[in-house]
């Protein structure tokens, strides 16, 4: 008996560990191919020049960036945008989060949900409405005219040459939910007894906020702010739509799509990457250092103060103002979709309303296939994300693998890598693999972006949004006592059964919310779609919207109709995710 047990030793010793080492190796391989390889290709060009020109290691391109006033200006502008957006987001979110935390009033649940909607309606679609509203003969001008502020047929240049202001405002109005979610989660974690203790010792409201509340919610604030900083620093769509060309992401995009191959944009990407990585690391360090709020558990029930109807309405006001401002561009899209061609001009509302664009969209050979494609790609990438997210989260939270810190960082890295960079990396890899696999037809077709970009798009979508699913699942696991799983194993359940019957049901809310967000973001992913999907029959909805938007005549209206459908769908996803997770949503949007 003893002997048999001894003999079984090597195999039986750590069946779990062997499995998890295999999974670890697989994960590392996946990250190496889908994440590191494209980055390395870009780094190589940035430091060694274009392939074929191999001039050896050089920092010349980086010198070139910092010497060139145009590129330097771009970096400066992008930094300015990132910092301003983050500050503006903080100024919008913190007071709202405090209001929602402290007071109970009619309609709070509704505005709390609606407040998140702008997050998944990216400026890319909103830009259609934004042009309509801010145009020289747009809605604002018409409204100003109706109010007698300007004469008839008098255009007003709302942002003029200060387009950077427009970019900051529009980005802030779409990214503030990230900070709002994080701060709300942090506030919910603060034991009310701590503030009560301070009040009991005689501290005034302001002192309590400054000395107790603010320091305790700081980790949440930092976590959200890091994401917003990186996001706005690398955002391509908004400055592009506002014709702000002197911003680093736009300069990268323009120079990458120009004919003459130059290593400069790659070097520029490397600069972006390094800057993002630094922001990311700083954010993580700041988070790691002061994680006090997460440790404390509320010992007393937080009791929101119930407001009277009058005061309740007053508390509601700032929420409504922010929501209306943030959704204004999207309202513009909705109106565009029902406006007669060319009829919304020099007027507050379109002069002719029609449902025609929707029926056109339904039969349009560009519109419907793109809807089908997007649903397909987004669903597939979501499935991939759930699988990988669960595995990675389990490794990070539950396993004792030595490399789990590395896995964690790798899974979060896509947050710091601009989508544009990955998309170009994938295109290059696709070409490379076709050469390698030229004798294996089906393998070649699988990785051929020209023939069928589905696989690459799904990988790109999945990778870009993996961090949210990982964070969501990690939060779920961290909130679930490990004893619940150990109890199942201890009573005889296999690892797989434990996962299926205990772990997954317990973190289902987190998984569903993470999956919904991954799905929503994949549906509206811009950079990968624009670059990877070239064959018309595989265009996702974003590419179709972009193409239609550029089409003369009724293109923009059909694009708007598509945009409206996507907006309704995505609004429902974020509202559902919010309903599933509530305050815990904050855990998803952090580094």
């Amino acid at each position, binding site marked *: 008996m003893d002997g048999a047990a001894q003999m079984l030793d090597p195999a039986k010793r750590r069946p779990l560990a062997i499995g998890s080492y295999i999974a670890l190796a697989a994960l590392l391989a996946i990250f190496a191919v889908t994440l590191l390889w494209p980055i390395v290709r870009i780094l190589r060009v940035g430091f060694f*020049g274009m392939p*074929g*020109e191999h*001039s050896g290691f*050089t920092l*010349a*391109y980086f010198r*070139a960036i910092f010497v060139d*006033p*145009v590129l330097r200006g771009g970096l400066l502008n992008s930094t300015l945008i990132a910092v301003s957006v983050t500050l503006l987001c903080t100024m919008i979110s913190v007071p709202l989060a405090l209001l929602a935390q402290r007071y109970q009033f009619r309609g709070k649940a509704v505005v709390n949900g609606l407040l998140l909607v702008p997050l998944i309606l990216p400026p890319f679609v909103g830009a259609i409405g934004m*042009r309509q509203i801010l*145009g*020289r*003969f747009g809605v604002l001008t018409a409204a100003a005219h109706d109010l007698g502020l300007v004469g008839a*047929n008098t*255009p007003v*240049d709302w942002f003029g*040459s200060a387009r950077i202001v427009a970019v900051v405002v529009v980005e802030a109005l779409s990214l503030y939910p990230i900070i709002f979610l994080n701060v709300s989660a942090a506030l919910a974690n603060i034991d009310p007894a701590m503030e009560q203790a301070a009040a009991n010792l005689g501290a005034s409201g302001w002192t309590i906020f400054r000395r107790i509340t603010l320091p305790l919610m700081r980790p949440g604030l930092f976590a959200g702010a890091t994401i917003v900083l990186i996001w706005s620093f690398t955002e391509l769509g908004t400055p*592009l739509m506002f*014709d702000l060309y002197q911003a680093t992401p736009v300069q990268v995009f*323009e120079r990458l*799509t*120009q*004919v003459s*191959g*130059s*290593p*400069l944009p790659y070097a520029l990407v490397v600069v972006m990457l390094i800057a993002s990585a630094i922001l990311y690391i700083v954010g993580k360090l700041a988070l790691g250092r002061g994680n006090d709020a997460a440790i404390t558990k509320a010992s007393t029930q937080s009791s929101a103060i119930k407001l009277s109807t009058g005061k309740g309405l007053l508390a509601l006001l700032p929420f409504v103002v922010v929501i209306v401002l943030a959704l204004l561009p999207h309202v513009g899209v909705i109106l565009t979709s029902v406006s007669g*061609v*060319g009829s919304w*001009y*020099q007027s507050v509302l379109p002069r002719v309303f029609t449902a025609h664009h929707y029926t056109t969209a*339904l*039969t*349009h*050979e*560009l519109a*419907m*296939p793109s809807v*089908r494609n997007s649903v397909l790609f987004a669903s597939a990438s979501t499935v991939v994300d759930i699988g990988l997210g669960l595995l990675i989260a389990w490794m990070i939270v539950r396993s004792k693998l030595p490399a789990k810190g590395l896995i964690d960082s790798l899974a979060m890295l896509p947050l710091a890598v601009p989508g544009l960079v990955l998309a170009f990396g994938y295109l290059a890899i696709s*070409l490379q693999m*076709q*050469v390698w696999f*030229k004798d294996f037809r089906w393998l070649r077709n699988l990785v051929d972006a*020209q023939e069928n970009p589905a696989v690459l798009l799904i990988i790109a979508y999945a990778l870009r949004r993996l961090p949210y699913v990982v964070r969501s699942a990690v939060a779920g696991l961290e909130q679930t006592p490990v004893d619940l799983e150990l109890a199942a194993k201890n009573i005889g359940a296999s690892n797989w059964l434990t996962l299926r019957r205990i772990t997954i049901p317990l973190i289902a809310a987190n998984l569903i919310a993470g999956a919904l967000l991954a799905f929503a973001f994949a549906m509206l992913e811009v950079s990968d779609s624009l670059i990877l999907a*070239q*064959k*018309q029959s595989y265009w996702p909805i974003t590419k179709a919207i972009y*193409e*239609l938007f*550029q*089409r*003369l*005549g*009724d293109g923009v209206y059909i694009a708007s109709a598509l945009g409206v459908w996507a907006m309704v*769908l995505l609004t*429902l*996803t974020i509202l*559902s995710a919010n*309903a599933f997770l509530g305050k815990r949503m904050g855990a998803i949007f952090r580094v």
Partner: protein
Amino acid sequence: MRRFVLLILFVVVLVAPFILQAAMGKRTKAAAGSELKLVILNAHHEGIRREFAVAFKAWHLAKYGQSVDIDYRSYGGGSDMLRYLESSKDTLFKATGTFKIDLVWGGGDYLFDRQLKKDYLEPVTLDPAVMHHAYPRPNLAGVPLYDQAASPKWFGAALSSFGIVYNKDVLRYLGLAEPKSWGDLADPRYRNWIVLADPMRSASAKQVFMIIVERMMLDAHDAGTDENQAWARGMGLLRQIAANARLFTDSSSSVPIVVGNGDVAAGMAIDFYGRAQADAVGDARMGYVEPVGATIINPDPIAVVRGAEHRELAIRFIEFVLSDEGQRLWNVRAGTAGGPVQTSLRRLPIVPAVYDDMSNFTDRVNPFVMNIGFAKSGAREKTFGVMGELMQISCIDLLDELRRTRTAILASPRAAELDARLGTFPFDQNEAIRRSELLISLKNAPAEERLKLLRGWTEEFRKEYEELRAAAKGRG
């Protein structure tokens, strides 16, 4: 259970379009299993792609009894197509002997003749009857309509010209007359009201800039003055127009859209873009004009790509495009007999015979009779290759400085003299050609060298603008 209600709603919205589509009974077929497939790399807008695909499928089915699948590849404009081919050359093409593209279509004759012909196009011999019908004359105003070789490598599929799109409401507000010539756009009252396309990204923007300069040189030639100096004045005019620019867009097709919205007063556009948008928003608001004698008519080609996997079918497509049936699609009003189904394309056919019946035409302009354009000459286009870079270093990168400089000049007592200085490039064509050759010679040098060179040139312009501003303020 609010969350489940939301989840159900989510699913309902998700499937709604598919159900509605089925209810309408017009399910669009996904690219289904036709044996024949044609892959076209294309720079046109979606309307052209769709109308030609529909018509060709019908034509092919009628003539050959087979259905065809058309697979358009869209990478953006002409330069993006070139970029794709360039990047595939050393990888895909080297490995497999094909670009997996059958046809390349659209983007202007310069792209085909100068950039694609050598490495990427396949010589094709069409049926002589087709050739004779399509091209009774080999050129129009000195511009070849197809590749002049025994086996041509490209064929003009339509004619294009360039003109000015303008918004009449904005002009009324600015108190400006409708523009008639390129020079009108340099009027300082247009300040911040002009839209231009970035010549580094839009081949057609490059062409229209070249036309403006070329016309100046031709004028000098006619007057017997120095063409090299005229080149500098042409570039200077572009500089003055650029000083009025509110922005440089990245695609020439957005120029008419921005004009139509009233965000700018005028811009330069390809004829059919301008006409199509004026059509959409109404002639009362928007106009399109071609500066008389100052534009060119050039062919927009189609060509078979080297290593095409479906060569036979590709040739049939070209034959269809050059047939009367195909040609009439360009200009017959949508919905009328022989015309497109949905979208009027408003382009000029290249086959002269088609103009015999213009009854259903959207634009009754016959370029073979009217003398819209002037004869181009390769000798005056030597700087075409470097036009994008020249505009970038002098105008786009320094747009703010340029604007401030012109404002300062116009406010100064020496306005006329200084504006004339701004209206003349600091160097002439010979110098530009020298610099262009310098750039070309650096093509294989480390890119750093090129950048250093360009940066140095930008600094020259920056200094020039500083000096002009100083002079305007009475310090120079």
